[in-house]
């Protein structure tokens, strides 16, 4: 018997196999579509209120587009984070990680495949948001800039959150710990938006708003869509999300290289 496969020449990169399986599990057998239904309902409620409620109706269309897009980016990012936070620690908790670690693929490939599946939640969230953006933004010429800026900011934030989630999930001993740390991290990222305006205007506050990928990304969307600023004029607000995405993905890949069975590997 020869163990080495005779079909080595036709083998797919393992991360594509993992990603394919995870995508099927997520979208055909599991949580993906129910999550999208709930998410679409949220966007529907937001859009309807913007369009009909007297108190909210003062918003001009550009603001309505910006608000809807910010909801899409924030919720899409949250879904990515939850998906990534469960990716490895969930397998560990369900005792299915060992079988996966026994395949002749690098740990990084396994984690990469799972991260791709988590990222698909953002792609789906963005696609679902597009009809709303089109309806709210038609006639005022912001649909294109909203779609493009939303794609850029949302993808950077989703990459950051996927990296953060995978990093945490790889190192966490339990799924509960992983989810708790991730949600706590997300709350911390929202915190700067609650700073008093005086602090936000001080240099420390301004730096914090620039560094925090969430506040920076959402500020960029507001500036481009509502104020009609050019991408170039507001590019400095993309540095935070970009750096955060690169660092988080690098950290996740570094942690993936050290992926172990976890605390339960003692016999």
């Amino acid at each position, binding site marked *: 018997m020869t*163990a080495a496969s005779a079909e*080595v020449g036709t*083998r*797919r990169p393992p991360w594509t196999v993992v990603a394919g399986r995870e995508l099927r599990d997520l979208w055909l057998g599991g949580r993906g579509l129910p999550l999208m239904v709930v998410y679409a309902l949220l966007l529907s409620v937001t859009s309807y209120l913007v369009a009909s409620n007297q108190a909210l109706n003062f918003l001009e269309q550009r603001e309505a587009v910006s608000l809807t897009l910010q909801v899409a980016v924030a919720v899409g990012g949250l879904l990515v984070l939850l998906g990534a936070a469960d990716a490895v620690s969930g397998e560990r908790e369900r*005792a299915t990680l060992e079988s996966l670690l026994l395949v002749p693929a690098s740990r990084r490939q396994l984690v990469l495949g799972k991260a791709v599946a988590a990222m698909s939640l953002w792609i789906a969230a963005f696609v679902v948001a597009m009809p709303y953006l089109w309806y709210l933004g038609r006639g005022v010429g912001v649909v294109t800039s909203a779609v493009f800026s939303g794609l850029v900011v949302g993808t950077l934030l989703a990459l950051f959150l996927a990296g953060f989630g995978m990093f945490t999930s790889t190192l966490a001993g339990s799924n509960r710990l992983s989810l708790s740390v991730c949600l706590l991290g997300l709350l911390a990222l929202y915190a700067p938006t609650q700073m008093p305006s005086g602090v936000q205007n001080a240099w420390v506050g301004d730096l914090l708003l620039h560094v925090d990928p969430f506040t920076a990304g959402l500020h960029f969307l507001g500036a481009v869509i509502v104020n009609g600023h050019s991408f170039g004029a507001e590019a400095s607000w993309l540095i935070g999300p970009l750096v955060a995405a690169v660092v988080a993905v690098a950290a996740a890949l570094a942690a993936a290289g050290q992926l172990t069975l976890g605390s339960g*590997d003692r016999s």
Partner: protein
Amino acid sequence: MSGLLALEVRGLRKSYGDALALESLDLELGAGHILGFLGPNGAGKTTVVRILSTILRPDAGWFAVAGVPNSRPQDIRRRIGVLPESAGYPRGQTGEEWLTYHAQLFGRPRSSARGTARRLLGEVGLAERGRSLISGYSRGMRQRLGIARSLVNDPEVVFLDEPTLGLDPVGQVQMLRLISSIAHEHGATVVLSTHLLGEVENLCDAVLILSRGRVVAQGTVTEVVHRAAAPREALVQVSTHLVERTLRAFSSGAIAAEALANGAQGEVRLIMPAGMSSDVAATSVMACLLNADVPVLSFRLEGGRLSDAFLAVTEASS
């Protein structure tokens, strides 16, 4: 490194913090053998299986599996199949989907992987349930699915960690038949970690007993039993009036004899010297009784089985 060795292990050592899990393991196992890997709970069996399957890194030592040194873990994983202890299974997938997935991860194209999955499901008796969700499988079915998973890459060495754990007697027999077929039909070397000592005795041609992270016995079943020097006894029944003569016949030899006060009439217990093999023991007893002109009504040799050796060596080490 010999090409004939399926497993070669030198000075393997592993600790978890201050707790020593494996003191020093040396092992050689030829290709095509079935090794019974025994030890009480916490002896370090799963640690060894995880080290040899490259899931855990040893603190010290060197090993090669199917001729591949531990410096190439991915190549080792390509050549081994493992049924982990208490393995989990994805409840939302069918058995066929799960096996196809793993076959693909071992480099098979999708169509070939599906063919492999179906073939293996048939081999382990799950052909009818291959497209059912794993969540509906019984424990025994899941174990058989795990065995099938360990074979998706046509492995040279298969590690089975407690494959009969939690199975009913019928399930255990089915599982042991399956393991036998892995060795004989697939031609793979099998490392079987189990508590079923009787079955190991019948199935395995080599045994390794671990206790508290140390190897306390190693070799063929006969060698282990012999080296374990497990005390063994025989019960011989003679006519009631010949009991005294029987006791006298053994009074001067290596075999001690005593009448059983509460046993059946005419029963005498014989205690063999440590290390005496079954054949020698039977021959010696019969020769003694023949010389004393004592007709034997019945003779039963006890002890000297792997279970006795197991108890002897593990108790001695603790």
